[in-house]
């Protein structure tokens, strides 16, 4: 049997996910943070961990290059990934928000220009409200955009709000809250159901036990 491939993005989500997998007996002792290897076989040889960029987890799973994965809801929405989103893991919880200089009134701008790493989520959100916006795709340090006049406001993930505060920006509107999700390829879930379903059920049991609202932070 081919091992079940699990796509994770290095970092906090991977660490918390691996903790859960460990609780249900799936361990990757060959994996350690600093390793430059990108694939690891589980100790029982039945699962293979593959490390990808956070934005790519959905893509790997949607195309079946990985059977399942853990991805932030933000990346799933942005990529529009067509996958089964089976478990809300509860961790990695944060908010999508519109932020800008204090006192900014969104309706003053026609059209509103928005700097963001997430143009699709931004467009979908404002379009669903019938508001016309222009998005400028940025790859980082989004907070800078309104300060130097590149955009009127920004749309970004807000966890603690510290970065905004230090740059004298306020949350103007909260959009949606997100968290980490266990996703599964639609075909794999059907064709490899006997191996995948028990994993899902066990993860679900752990999460439901813990309660969905708890976060490790």
């Amino acid at each position, binding site marked *: 049997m081919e091992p079940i491939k699990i796509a994770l993005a290095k970092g906090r989500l991977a660490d918390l996910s691996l903790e859960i997998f460990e609780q249900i007996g799936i361990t990757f002792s060959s994996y350690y943070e600093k390793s430059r290897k990108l694939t690891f076989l589980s100790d029982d040889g039945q699962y293979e961990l593959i490390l990808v960029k956070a934005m790519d987890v959905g893509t790997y799973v949607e195309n079946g290059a990985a059977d399942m994965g853990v991805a932030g809801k933000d990346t799933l929405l942005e990529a529009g990934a067509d996958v089964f*989103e089976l478990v809300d893991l509860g961790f990695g919880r944060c908010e999508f928000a519109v932020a800008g200089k204090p006192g900014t009134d969104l309706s003053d701008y026609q059209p509103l220009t928005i700097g963001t790493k997430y143009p699709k989520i931004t467009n979908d959100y404002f379009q669903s409200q019938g508001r016309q916006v222009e998005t400028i795709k940025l790859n980082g340090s989004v907070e800078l955009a309104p300060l130097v006049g590149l955009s009127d406001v920004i749309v970004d993930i807000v966890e603690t709000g510290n970065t905004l505060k230090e740059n004298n920006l306020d949350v103007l509107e909260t959009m949606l809250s997100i968290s980490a999700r266990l996703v599964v390829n639609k075909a794999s879930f059907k064709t490899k159901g006997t191996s995948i379903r028990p994993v899902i059920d066990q993860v679900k049991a752990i999460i439901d036990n813990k309660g969905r609202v708890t976060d490790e932070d």
Partner: protein
Amino acid sequence: MALNQPLPQGVTDLYAQEYELKQTIIDRLKQLYHHYGCQPIQTPTFEYYDLFMNIPGTMNDDQMIKLIDTDGKVLVLRPDATVPIARMASQAKSDMPLLNKMYYVTNIFRMESGESDRTSRSFSQVGVEWFDDGRELNDIEMVILAVDTLKQIEVSDIQLELGQAGFFRALMDEAQLDAETEALIQAKLEAKNEYELSDLLESLQVSDEVKQALLRLPHLFGEANHVLKDAKSVAINDQMAKALDQLTGLVEHLTELGYADYISIDLGLVNHLNYYTGVMFQGYVEGYGKPVIQGGRYDQLMTYFNLESSAIGFGVYIDDLLRIVKQQQTLQLEEPNQAVILTNHTTTKEAFSLAQSLRQNQIVTSIAYEDDVVDESSIIIDIVSKTVNINGDKQPFETIDQVLTKVGITYGTD
């Protein structure tokens, strides 16, 4: 220096072995559908935009590739195979039920502007459509034909997943929600996103009974008999029970016919619901991340063409099958006997007449000049020096009949 002429996104050239393999797949399927009594049909590559827009919910407007006609009317490149065939059937449906079973081999065009692979904007689909009276007999036959489609090209680890559009439809009728909310619920179900579905239902005015049933749906999939048993308690009205009975009947017949191993059930299968009205199915091959067959019974579509008919059909994604066939290496291309005749200006006549004889005997034959470079693995017949070279074994010959004998063709027998 060659000019660099790039291809547009999402399309590709196909040649040599890859194209031959694709044609082999298509040929095999055509043969299968022919034996099932389907008639080949073809619809135009482009049609009026209005044809597709008048049918709500089937096609995404943004995904159609549009052209403007000289009179200003908008045309679209065939964005879907079934709608044009339904249009055609409404104009030419026969009173003889068996004549209304058709198959097609066609290209579908979609405007995908994001990242795209080489077949995302133009891909090949083979499929079957049957305009019938909705009888169970035909449901059985079409499900079997879908499974046989995958068997016909010898891929292994195949699975056909069955759903029932009527089951979810009847549940939604019970809930009485507006179309927008229904679409939201459908999207959550499509992703089997139980958590967000539960949050969504909390915010809605829906009876607990419906809520519980909806939350059970993402779990109702897997081994057929098991799911059907589980689903009984979810059927909260007569319509749901009826839909379930239909599916149960179908599964019983399929089991009887030895197809139990190939089928499974997913009652949470709710995509394309504004299209399908009865049994739905999706074909999967283990190790391939996308469905390769999609189909089901659709009655609603026909009413747009004022046609009193039910219909059932499915489409097969040939480009995906081609990838699977290459992955699993199931179909091997036959390597036919090949011969090359070497000639010069004085022996052209002999060369051509020998070539004709060989070709009539199913030997792939080419003609070249003596000093051309030729494939050493073919049978090389030098008509100038009168020698035949088969696998490096060079022998002289006198007459054309002798050549034919040497390359394995004997006259008079058979």
